[in-house]
């Protein structure tokens, strides 16, 4: 009887149809003008990087950009509209300056995206490399566990972690990291499988290299480009996802702010001051899109170079 190809390929949330192809490192030598053309193809990534850099630089220079502290309550300046002197983005119900609060959210929101994406990729890659290279029963066990966890609703995990360990930035990051592990492990495993029987791996195995050196020195560099691209997409997705956790009160806890907390606070003033909810929303979307654009551009270039 025919088996059902329920989930034979790793599912990339942004591109569920086209599984990512393994990268090849043996790129032909190119002359200098061709190099410059190569660099030009990356322009969307540069624009996206610039957008992210603007937020980071604005945060670093926050003291000279605004005179208000993000937590300073000024009842007399409550609910100022966008474009008010001193508060270009307006103020919230307690008179706190939205511009300085958005800036105060930069490190939290970026870390909230980057740390889980990096941790999820490192652990996921380790699991995937081991499963793919080891094969046999080890692989079967790992794959079936990952298959089960792959589509399990992540929010339940986040709720459980917050219920037991308490709602905090750190615990939310643990839950989010766990949620992307299976996807990354599967992806790296399928990459490893396609590399495992290539000549250079077989050659080093015949030369007597052990499993660990082969994984670290030969397999890892070859799955790295894909891993970085996926991690970049993940940063974008994680920023949105973790903002959601903060929005329902399971992420960053006041008085700290990330952009999700700002949207939740702003939602209360949706009738009188919609800027309070929508400006942080636009910021979240802009930064996530920037990371996804980087991933998408690099993915396309990687694919076309094969």
């Amino acid at each position: 009887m025919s088996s059902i190809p329920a989930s034979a390929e790793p599912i990339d949330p942004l591109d569920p149809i086209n599984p990512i192809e393994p990268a090849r490192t043996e790129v032909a030598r190119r002359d200098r003008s061709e190099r410059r053309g190569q660099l030009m193809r990356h322009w969307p990534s540069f624009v996206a990087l610039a957008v992210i850099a603007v937020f980071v630089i604005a945060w670093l220079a926050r003291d000279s950009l605004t005179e208000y502290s993000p937590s300073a309550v000024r009842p007399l300046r409550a609910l100022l509209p966008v474009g008010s002197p001193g508060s270009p983005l307006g103020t919230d119900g307690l008179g706190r300056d939205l511009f300085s609060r958005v800036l105060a959210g930069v490190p939290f929101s970026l870390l909230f995206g980057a740390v889980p994406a990096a941790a999820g990729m490192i652990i996921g890659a380790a699991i995937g490399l081991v499963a793919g290279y080891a094969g046999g029963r080890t692989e079967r066990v790992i794959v079936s566990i990952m298959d089960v966890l792959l589509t399990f609703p992540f929010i339940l995990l986040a709720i459980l972690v917050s219920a037991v360990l308490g709602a905090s930035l750190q615990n939310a990051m643990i839950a989010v990291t766990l949620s992307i592990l299976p996807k990354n492990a599967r992806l790296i495993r399928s990459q490893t499988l396609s590399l495992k029987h290539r000549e250079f791996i077989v050659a080093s195995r015949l030369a007597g290299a052990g499993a660990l050196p082969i994984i670290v020195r030969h397999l890892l560099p070859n799955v790295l480009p894909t891993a970085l691209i996926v991690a970049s997409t993940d940063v974008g997705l994680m920023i949105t996802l973790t903002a959601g956790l903060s929005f329902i009160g399971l992420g960053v806890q006041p008085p700290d702010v990330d952009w999700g907390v700002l949207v939740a606070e702003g939602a209360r003033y949706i009738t009188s001051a919609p800027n309070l909810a929508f400006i942080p929303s636009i910021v979240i979307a802009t930064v996530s899109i920037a990371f996804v654009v980087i991933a998408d551009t690099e993915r396309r270039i990687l694919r076309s170079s094969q």
Partner: protein
Amino acid sequence: MGRYLLSRAGSSLLVLLGASIVLFTVIRMVPGDPMTILLGSVNIVNPELVARTRAEYNLDAPLPLQYFAWLGHVLQGDFGRSLWTGEMVSDIVGRRLGPSLLLGLSASMLGLVIGISWGIAAGYLSGAGRAVLRNLPMLMLVIPTFSIGLLLVFVFAVSLGILPASGFASPLEGTTPSVPSAILHLILPSLALCLVPASLVARLTYATVDEIEQEEFIRTARALGVPRLRIAIQHSLPNVLLPIITTGGLLISALITNAVLIETVFSWPGIGTMMVSAVQQRDYTVVQAGILVVATAYVLTSLAVDALYLVADPRVRTPAQE
């Protein structure tokens, strides 16, 4: 075929068992006496009830036996009492389940309809419309769902004033049960909730359409002069359903995760808002029950979707004789 379904059902059961073991263990790890957790601080002073519960839940026995005693209660729908209100958790869950199911069902229907028609349009349109329709789903996946919910509230409730901003109206119960009011309250949350699954479905759909366009039967149909719309509906649509069913688990999972956010935006009295406030109140029994109920719903719907695959794909239903 039957064997496939049976093995899927078996692994679903394993997932649920695993989830229940994790939930049981984790809630036992929470500091505090399990007696208080089972009875609530209100009833802990009643010595007779304490003794009875201790026996009922096998609290003097080793942990694995305690687990089976607890599982027995859960299977009968007894999740203990809320630590916050002292109310039976099953009553709370029962009250919250209806609104959540209503929202989930209407959002998935809406998501399928919007997603498939979006994807078909993106597959067959050309020019600017095609570019917009193909890039928008990607955008929808990174724009926060709760922001989209708030935007809908702002446009349709605050600015236009034509739909209620939040809350739930029961079509069956209450002082003035009214179906029209229930539908009006349902529109915005369903729309906000369906957009992420719809974007995923749209991407799958136009990718499948692109693939099918290369097939000979489509070229033949076109050569015979069959109108484009008819090709789309009669030939592409059935093929589009398969990849959607295959990624069903992912879609349901996305729906559940976003439902918690959307319920919060619209103050929807569902399981999602119940779990969120229970976390803030450290109401472990309610959290436990909520997670178990949602996990069960997820596993059962995924299983149903897998069964649909057999219905939708004749190649699987009647396997070739080998």
